[in-house]
């Protein structure tokens, strides 16, 4: 227990750790946030409006005003062909069945209940190769439709609707970036922090000195892991706070789910750090080793841009990296608010990586 407190103290006093785990990711957020500010990428959407209703027309009109969406209306067949060719991320189809809600009759002093409207399904066809983009579009459109519905049934003021529509440009690049950066900083903090930390302790003979005391070696690992997890949580809190407050990112997820995914992923990366420190001879070799692992992951792991935006031949590589799954899981939790069950595949892949790492570390760890 005393060791845990002392270890936390040591970690917090280490400015290098603080730099890499807190300031570096925030710096990246600022850099990339600024780089893509305003110049948000646009998403090509096909629009097929089969409904002749006024509502549908208004909706199309409003959607066109959403900046991130580039909407084309070239007819059903041509749009679907474009979708297949990958020129569209999604095609939205408004069916004929969508009709205007019946006009409310205003009786004197007596408010009438609005007529019941049968909900109409609006189809969104995705290009599966661009699933991640499509998800962003789907979220934008979903929110849009939600707000639109509210507007249509509640107050029929189309003016506020268009205002809302502008606002509903909700998921910006920062919303993509923030979860990715959190995943990245967990990886950096975990892999680099643990690997450097333990290798340094070993090289200085501190590990051996600990072995010369009656301490149970397992406690050493427990202390290291708990300390790093606390750092990871602190990191995440700071980053979410900065992301939301300073860069206008959105946090739709449940805090609990977020915390669980965070802890889980951080542990996997800690194990990676342990593996690195086990395989490295000394501090001089551990640094290039961790860099060789973290740098490619940083760029291929879907942190700064979607995996789908990468050359096709590189995509399978990305899909094997644990960071891809971690950033994907965090992204879904933070900006879509999904449950653990939805991201079970991500968690499973991370678990497999974690177990593999643990086995290697357990076999190769040395105290001196």
């Amino acid at each position, binding site marked *: 227990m005393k060791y845990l407190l002392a270890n936390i103290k040591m970690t917090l006093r280490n400015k290098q750790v603080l730099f890499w785990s807190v300031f570096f990711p925030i710096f990246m957020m600022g850099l990339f946030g600024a780089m893509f500010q305003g110049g948000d990428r646009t998403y090509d959407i096909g629009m097929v409006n089969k409904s002749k209703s006024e509502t549908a027309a208004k909706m199309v009109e409003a959607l066109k005003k959403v900046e991130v969406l580039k909407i084309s209306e070239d007819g059903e067949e041509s749009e679907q062909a474009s979708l297949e060719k990958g020129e569209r991320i999604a095609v939205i189809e408004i069916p004929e069945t969508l009709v205007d809600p019946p006009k409310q009759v205003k009786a004197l002093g007596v408010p009438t209940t609005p007529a019941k409207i049968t909900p109409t399904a609006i189809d969104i066809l995705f290009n599966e190769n661009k699933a991640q983009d499509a998800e962003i579009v789907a979220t934008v459109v979903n929110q849009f439709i939600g707000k639109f519905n509210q507007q249509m049934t509640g107050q029929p003021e189309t003016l506020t609707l268009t205002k809302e529509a502008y606002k509903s440009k909700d998921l910006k690049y920062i919303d993509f970036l923030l979860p990715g950066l959190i995943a990245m900083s967990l990886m950096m903090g975990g892999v680099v922090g643990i690997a450097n930390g333990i290798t340094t302790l070993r090289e200085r003979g501190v590990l051996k000195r600990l*072995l010369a005391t009656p301490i149970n070696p397992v406690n050493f690992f427990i202390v290291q892991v708990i300390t790093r997890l606390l750092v990871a949580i602190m990191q995440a809190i700071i980053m979410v706070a900065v992301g939301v407050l300073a860069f206008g990112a959105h946090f739709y997820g449940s805090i609990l789910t977020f915390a669980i995914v965070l802890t889980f992923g951080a542990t996997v990366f800690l194990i990676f750090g342990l593996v690195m420190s086990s395989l490295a001879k000394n501090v001089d070799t551990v640094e290039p080793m961790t860099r060789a692992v973290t740098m490619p992951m940083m760029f291929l792991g879907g942190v700064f841009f979607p995996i789908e935006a990468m050359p096709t031949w590189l995509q399978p590589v990305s899909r094997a990296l644990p960071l891809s799954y971690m950033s994907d899981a965090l992204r879904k939790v933070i900006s879509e608010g999904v449950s653990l069950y939805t991201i079970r595949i991500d968690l499973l892949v991370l678990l497999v990586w974690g177990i593999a790492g643990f086995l290697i570390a357990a076999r190769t760890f040395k105290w001196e």
Partner: protein
Amino acid sequence: MANIIEVKNLTKKYGNFKAVDNISFEVKKGEIFGILGPNGAGKTTTLEMLESLRTPTSGIVKVLGFDVSTNAHEIKERIGVQLQATAFFDFLSCEETLDLFGSFYDEAQKSSKLLEEVSLMPKAKTFVNDLSGGQKQRLSIAMALVNSPELIFLDEPTTGLDPQARRNLWDLIDAIRKGGKTIILTTHYMEEAEYLCDRVAIMDEAKIKDIDSPRGLIRKLKAENKVEFSADKKIDLKKLEKETGALTADYVEGDVYSLRTKDSHKTINQLLEYAKKNDIKLDNLHISQATLEDVFLSYTGKSLREK
């Protein structure tokens, strides 16, 4: 007097390499026992087997009555250890370091008392990184005392220190022994072994060559005195040896020669005579008593000092 450590036929092999080769010795309660030898002699490996940090390949090691291979935990609870590299955590003060290490033991002394003992009280709040070499060594000795051990292991406690700091540390180690503790230390400094140790084991190439008190070892030496001088001409060593009746004649460096002899009076007379006859100018002539250095030389045929 009871033996605190008993080592019998201890061997440690790494593959085919024998780091420690069939050594046996005992350490008595209350003494300072030194293991003297050059780097790579097997001193540290021996010490680490006694500290239960390494498993012996064969042989029996009993520390405080416990067997190292079965009762490592009991031993670790009762011994104090200072490793060769001063191993500290970064970003902890002296006080915090001692408190932390104290927490690893069932019972521990107060950090303030320990700091007092090694005269580091003014540095209690100083980060370990900001200590001087001598202060670090004293802190690591304080760490070895944290559980009030009966037996303390010091692995080259003064290596890399300046003479003043070394002298301070010797006084500290002496004071600890006077407090009733048994100390076993390794060193490659002759003066250190002579000054501190009650008994010394001479170790070279994985074997123990001899064990005795420093004086006893010197007395056993064939030559008890050393005559050193410089000459303005080159002298043949063989000839010098013969003419002066010395046991050995060696170059020390440049024009400085060294003779080992049992009878310094005779050797000096003959040396002066030889110099006169050959018109050699002698300078810096001095006689000194043989030291452990000479003992070591005679046992191993090589000098202890790192070249």
